[in-house]
């Protein structure tokens, strides 16, 4: 097997056994990334020199025997995460030339684990989007069909893993921005419990919802990534101070004939209704049959308030964003208009030029819902409904261990198909948003393909801090299926362009 086809677990084992060096893996990885760049546009920044230096250091650490668990494994970070010395653009003209002076917490943690940072991945501007069409640096293409969107906002990170450019990458999930692109590109994407991974160094979109998490091709790899990424950070007041966990601990247990015996899977009625694509519904049903064969039982449940999650989200997220993005004013860093007449005009022009249409739309919506006289009707009401949704989840998890359903109502769609209709675009996140509003963890794993060859994602949601359980449930499914092993036609096959 070529190194690029290997998993994080496989690569880490091969590197540990000194069967191959990180410099070899990293060089091959960089070559593939550069070859795929024209067709996929998954990266905003490729750091060849930095990556090779890290790879050499990882090899030296392996030789000394003091290497971290993931030493030498190449990964990519979503460009929303601050990476010291590298441009961190957030997919925006506003930060097109912004060099981060420090590492985000999860970046720092993955560095400490020994991973090699090869580059920064493309994304929807300021993580606002579900199709990667809002990036200032152009759209990312879906490796399964380059006429299709890869999903968003972490579209570059998802496409890079799906195209076997890197074995793992980071993303951030505010309303589905990890799970939705994972589903649309046929890989695994985990959104951990809010507070498990520090937000320090994550350029804020909606602070109460933003959650960093990993992309990989297997649940086991996601667990390995999360082991490095999770932990308490005193620099983030919403970071949770809990004892460290080994997220592979359930996966590591030996499998029996019925590894999921006793698992109660809740099937929310609201996730199986109208609007769900028939091919997607069929794939979910087939997956559920597999889970039953593994020993699990299913139970029908109801989440009545979840139908309000999209409108609630589109009040809370823009409200927080409108305030979070105020710091991009052209005063201290970021884009400043070349010509302006006075302070107010400097603000106006810098922000008008620096932000794209979707970002402006959300700033306007957010400013509106927080305005005097509207706050109670929108923001306060939304927060109340948010609590109702959390109540729904609490009741549900009294009846079941995990909830399952489709990650998205449909599969990857063509560029431009929904960009003229924001509401249609927003409805793509209808199944993922509730998990952000409650702060509970969820993973999307591949569970089939449409006849047109586009991947279908299964979402597994759990109660707070049930990451190890969710990852194990996903892992057992992957032991019994091979959807995660299917690769798209190789986008990096041709000769490198130099």
């Amino acid at each position, binding site marked *: 097997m070529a190194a690029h086809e290997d998993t994080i677990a496989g690569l880490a084992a091969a590197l540990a056994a000194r069967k191959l060096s990180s410099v070899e893996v990293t060089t091959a990885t960089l070559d593939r990334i550069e070859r795929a760049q024209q067709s996929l546009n998954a990266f905003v920044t490729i750091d060849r020199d930095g990556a090779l230096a890290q790879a050499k250091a990882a090899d030296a650490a392996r030789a000394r025997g003091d290497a971290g668990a993931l030493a030498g494994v190449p990964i990519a970070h979503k460009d929303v995460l601050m990476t010291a010395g590298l441009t961190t653009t957030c997919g925006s003209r506003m930060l097109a030339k912004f060099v981060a002076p420090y590492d985000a917490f999860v970046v720092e943690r993955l560095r400490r684990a020994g991973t090699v940072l090869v580059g920064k991945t493309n994304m929807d501007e300021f993580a606002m989007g579900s199709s990667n069409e809002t990036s200032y640096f152009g759209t990312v293409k879906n490796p399964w069909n380059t006429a299709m969107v890869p999903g968003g906002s972490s579209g570059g990170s998802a496409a890079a893993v799906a195209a076997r450019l890197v074995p793992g990458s980071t993303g951030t999930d505010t309303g589905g921005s990890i799970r939705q692109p994972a589903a649309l590109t046929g890989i695994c994407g985990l959104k951990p419990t809010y507070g498990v991974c520090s*937000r320090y160094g*994550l350029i804020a979109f*909606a602070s*109460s919802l933003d959650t960093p998490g990993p992309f990989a091709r297997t649940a086991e790899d996601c667990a390995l990534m999360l082991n490095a990424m999770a932990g308490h950070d005193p*620099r983030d007041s*919403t970071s949770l101070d809990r004892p460290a966990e080994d997220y592979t601990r359930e996966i590591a247990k030996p499998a029996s004939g019925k590894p999921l015996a006793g698992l109660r899977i809740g099937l929310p009625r609201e996730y199986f209704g109208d609007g769900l694509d028939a091919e997607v519904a069929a794939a979910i049903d087939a997956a559920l049959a597999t889970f039953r064969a593994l020993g699990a039982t299913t139970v029908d449940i109801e989440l009545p308030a979840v139908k309000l999650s999209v409108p609630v989200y589109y009040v809370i997220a823009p409200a927080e964003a409108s*305030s979070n993005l*105020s*710091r991009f004013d052209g005063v*201290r860093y970021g884009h400043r208009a070349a010509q302006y007449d006075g302070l107010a005009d400097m603000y106006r022009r810098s922000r008008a030029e620096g932000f794209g249409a979707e970002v402006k739309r959300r700033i306007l919506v957010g400013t509106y819902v927080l305005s005097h006289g509207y706050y109670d009707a929108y923001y306060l009401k939304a927060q109340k409904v948010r609590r109702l949704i959390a109540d729904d989840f609490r009741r549900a998890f009294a009846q079941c261990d995990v909830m399952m359903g489709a990650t998205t109502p449909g599969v990857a769609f063509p560029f431009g198909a929904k960009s003229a209709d924001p509401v249609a675009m927003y409805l793509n996140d209808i199944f993922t948003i509730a998990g952000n509003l409650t702060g509970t963890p969820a993973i999307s794993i591949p569970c089939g393909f449409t006849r047109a060859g586009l991947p279908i994602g299964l979402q597994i949601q759990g109660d707070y801090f049930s990451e190890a359980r969710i990852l194990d449930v996903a892992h057992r499914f992957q032991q019994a299926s091979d959807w995660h092993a299917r690769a798209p036609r190789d986008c990096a096959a041709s000769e490198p362009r130099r």
Partner: protein
Amino acid sequence: MAVRGRSPRFEGIMTAKWEVVIGLETHAQLSTASKIFSGASTAFGAPPNAHASAVDIALPGVLPVLNRGAVERAIRFGLAVGGHVQPRSVFARKNYFYPDLPKGYQISQYEIPVVQGGRVEFVVGDAQKSVRLTRAHLEEDAGKSLHEDFSGMTGVDLNRAGTPLLEIVSEPDMRSAEEAVAYAKALHALVRWIDICDGNMQEGSFRCDANVSVRRAGDEALGTRCEIKNLNSFRFIEKAIQFEVRRQVELIDDGGTVVQETRLYDPDRDETRSMRSKEDAQDYRYFPDPDLPPLAIDSAWVARVQAWLPELPQAMRARMVERHGLLPHEAAILTAERDVATYYERTVAALGGSARLAAHWVIGELSAALNRSGVPVASAKVGPEALAGLLKRVEDKTLSGKLASTVFDAMWNGEGDADTIIAARGLKQISDTGALEKIVDDVLAAHPAIVAEVKAGKEKAFNALVGKAMAATKGKANPGEVNAILKRRLGG
């Protein structure tokens, strides 16, 4: 529009026809070593932006972490004013754009402040006053825009950005500029007393906004108020309010109406000027800051702070009046500063005798010496125990008041303790009746003309004889004793 000059018709009509209503909002900079949401230093006077961390300049991705010391100080204040320390309070974002506000919002407390209610007690003359507090809340300061140093540009210094502030909001309980100043002084003394603010007004550590309105005497409804921003001295508070009251009264008298607005006081011109009207008021779009969980203060924390809290000025004043027999204004002077009160208390303890004597000396000789030498009371060259040593010699009549002053000056100059100086200079007061009788008899014999005047009923002449006797002893005679002997001799 600015209104200038003093109206001649103004003075008399003022108190008779109009009632002035004043409330103050005070920003006290909390004396933490680091900022309220970052680890950067709060030290004053550093080069621009030397104390601006990633959090203070609001780099992308940074997050606020609340400084426990700032909360501790807010609790102290809440307890000191008898307010309610909220077990759960909420930080909110106040959104507006300004170059010295790096995040585009200020983190403050809006709907649920850390302290609600309370009152500040103080003395005006010998009368006790009390001003109710609405609330006190924690917030961060903004940076500074520097317009002077750059031609055609504005510099931004973020050293001050993120400095912890306690905003203390009073009820509109004050009825004159004098009362407002007395309240501000009492508040200033209190925040220093409980060691939460250094009170340095030049550096902006303690500054007030005054809400001023007037209404016709007897009216129930409050008049329209104007807010005067950023008053950073007691004198400016007084002058600004006086000007504003005159302006509003004249405006109404001339048939105009007061417009609700924010005004700035210009000390150079002694006037207030309109800054922005209510119509220009921004919509700050307050909402709870999602980066900061609600601030939880448990009762154990409050109890620990309560146990730490020193005796407060108003309690100390009451004790001084009841137990020490001081007058309220004397007690007020002694409790204006905690160091002064401590000095006085230590003097009384070491003296073991008359507290009033100690009070008079602390208020009189000691304060004068401190003023002359410009040193704070904590580093007075005559410590409380040394002063008590001197006052013992006054109590036992070894020294007259005048001699004691001489000895005090010598002590201040480092010549040693009171007894050493008395011995070295031979300053012991002569109270020996036999010796004094001889001196008095000599004086009477030497000045028959003055004696005749006394016998003719001239009061002044008697004092002249006392003076002669005192002069004969170089001031060492006990004046009371001299008086008594003279009266006996002259058959008074």
